[in-house]
């Protein structure tokens, strides 16, 4: 079984500041549904930035889907992220001047490889199918400013999932939802990740959800830089 994520001796800091991440090892098999938890300030979002290739580690190896991001240039990491990673933010996930449909199709329009994986259907059709799966099929033409928070998060999930990226990274996507909706959202997200064979890294400080995941990682336990 190949590894989705293989981090070795990772060290990261902002500028000349103190170390924020110091992780000797973190591995994750493909297809895992991982729950990454830790208190605020334990470096969760920073780790996701490194895994997504937005932040460049100062030391160590960060292999994602077999590629060492630490050895890639900024532009290469951007292209890698566009092709292989879907990202869901905690809130305000959507670009306000784009419609629901345009928000969902953005990664596919940005990256040819994501477009190529749409199984021959057009970008809009693929977005419509995903939107149906996440029960927002009737919202496609709406401006995003009219959506509820829960609807917004499902649009963000559609955007992360379009073009079947191998790795989905979600940064506390449920923290602004009430409990019932959290579970419903997670179930939809799991189902779609499974359908696409994607690995999911889900970050939260809310441990009530951890029972739904196949792997649980406590960031303070693996990050020696945690204060």
């Amino acid at each position: 079984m190949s590894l989705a994520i293989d981090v070795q001796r990772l060290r990261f800091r902002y500028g000349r500041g103190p170390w924020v991440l110091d992780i000797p090892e973190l591995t994750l098999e493909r297809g895992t549904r991982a729950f990454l938890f830790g208190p605020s300030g334990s470096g969760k979002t920073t780790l996701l930035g490194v895994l997504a290739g937005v932040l460049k580690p100062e030391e160590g190896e960060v292999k994602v889907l077999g590629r060492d991001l630490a050895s890639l240039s900024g532009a290469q990491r951007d292209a890698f992220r566009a092709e292989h990673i879907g990202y869901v933010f905690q809130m305000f996930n959507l670009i306000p001047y784009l419609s629901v449909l345009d928000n969902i199709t953005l990664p596919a329009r940005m990256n040819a490889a994501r477009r190529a994986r749409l199984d021959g259907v057009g970008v809009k059709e693929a977005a419509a199918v995903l939107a149906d799966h996440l029960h927002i099929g009737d919202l496609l033409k709406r401006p995003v400013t009219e959506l509820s928070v829960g609807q917004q998060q499902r649009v963000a999930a559609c955007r992360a999932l379009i073009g079947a990226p191998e790795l989905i990274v979600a940064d506390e996507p449920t923290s602004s939802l009430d409990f019932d909706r959290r579970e419903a959202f997670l179930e939809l997200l799991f189902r779609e990740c499974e359908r696409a064979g994607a690995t999911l890294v889900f970050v939260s400080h809310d441990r009530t959800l951890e029972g739904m995941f196949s792997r649980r990682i406590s960031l303070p336990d693996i990050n020696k830089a945690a204060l």
Partner: protein
Amino acid sequence: MLVLDLALKSLRNRAFSTSLTVGSIALSVALLVGVENVRVGMRESFSNTISQTDLIVGAKGGTIQLLLYSVFGMGSPTNNLSWETYREWAEHPAVEWTIPYGLGDSHRGFRVIGTNEDFYRRYRYRGGQEIALAEGRAGSEVFDVTLGADVAAELGYGLGDEVAVTHGIGEVGFLNHDQMPFEVVGILAKTFTPVDRAVYVTLEGIEAIHFGWEDGAPPMPGEEHTLEEVLAMEEIEITQVTSFFVGTANRRDVLRLQREINDYEAEPMMAVIPGLALSEMWQGIGYAETGLRLVTIFVVLVGLLGMLVSLYTSLNERRREMAILRAVGAGPGSIVVLLVLEAVCLAAAGALAGLGLVYVLLSAGQPIVEAQVGLFIPIRPPGSVEWLFLGAVVTAGFLMGFVPALKAYRTALHDGLAVRV
């Protein structure tokens, strides 16, 4: 294409600030292009004041002075030429036609020009247009007077009215030739040249009112000629002209003829080529042009700075948007492209709107400006100058776009996917 689509949708989303920005750029560009149009119109109407005249000849003096008093009805002539000299040159083999001008008198501030029928036949302006009569006939008798269009309109004169000529050039003359009134026999059609502001009489008429005058001084009491005496004369002898216009049969003779006239020994005189003298004169006014253009360029810069401010201040509220774009795979370079494109779109939209505004204003204002100021501003499709301006505005917008773009670039690199607002 995706980034352009994003740029346009982002601008549309901020419709109010976008339209304000485009509007201010449009106004400044309209000012720039409009001033350019007025400038070209002024220059053309200036250099078209007189056309098809090859030489203007007068007593020796300054070329611009000769041009001013002969063509523009400004300034005073210094000396006259004798009638014999004029006839000698009029019969020169290279000369096809001449128009003699006798100057020095006025009527209520308008110049009185003594001339003959050659003026009505030969005078051309603005690309060869002829003098036309709006009413009546061209003056040909001693006390006939033909009025320029503005003179008739401003003084409210009609055919048959009496006009007294004042000696000298000024609003209020104290030496009136009022014992010999002239009668209005014709009114010229409007030309939008100084012709409209002149009063035309015959050379004989000029002679008649100056009978007995010597060296610019009025005749002694008792020596004045009466109207009856003048009318009783069979023929009035013309003694002098102030200047004359020359048309050559063959334009290759112009320079040689000019030299011959300048070297004429019997009387000190000079000939100027109107086109050259006019452009020489225009260059003197050119400083004002440069100044005006400089001001309008600064106005455009201010318009573009407004755009810069509006893009720059929007950046903070767009940090989340930038993080999202980064998350879906946009590099920081794409963020730069997005913002520069927005700036270019704003500048281009403003420039085109400004150009359109100029045409709207021109087509609405052209008849009014022509009637009020006498300035004819031609409406033409945008030429190389206009496109150059628009290109410069868009280029300036492009360059200015890098200011917010580089700021966004730095923010995007620093923020990554986390937005610490």
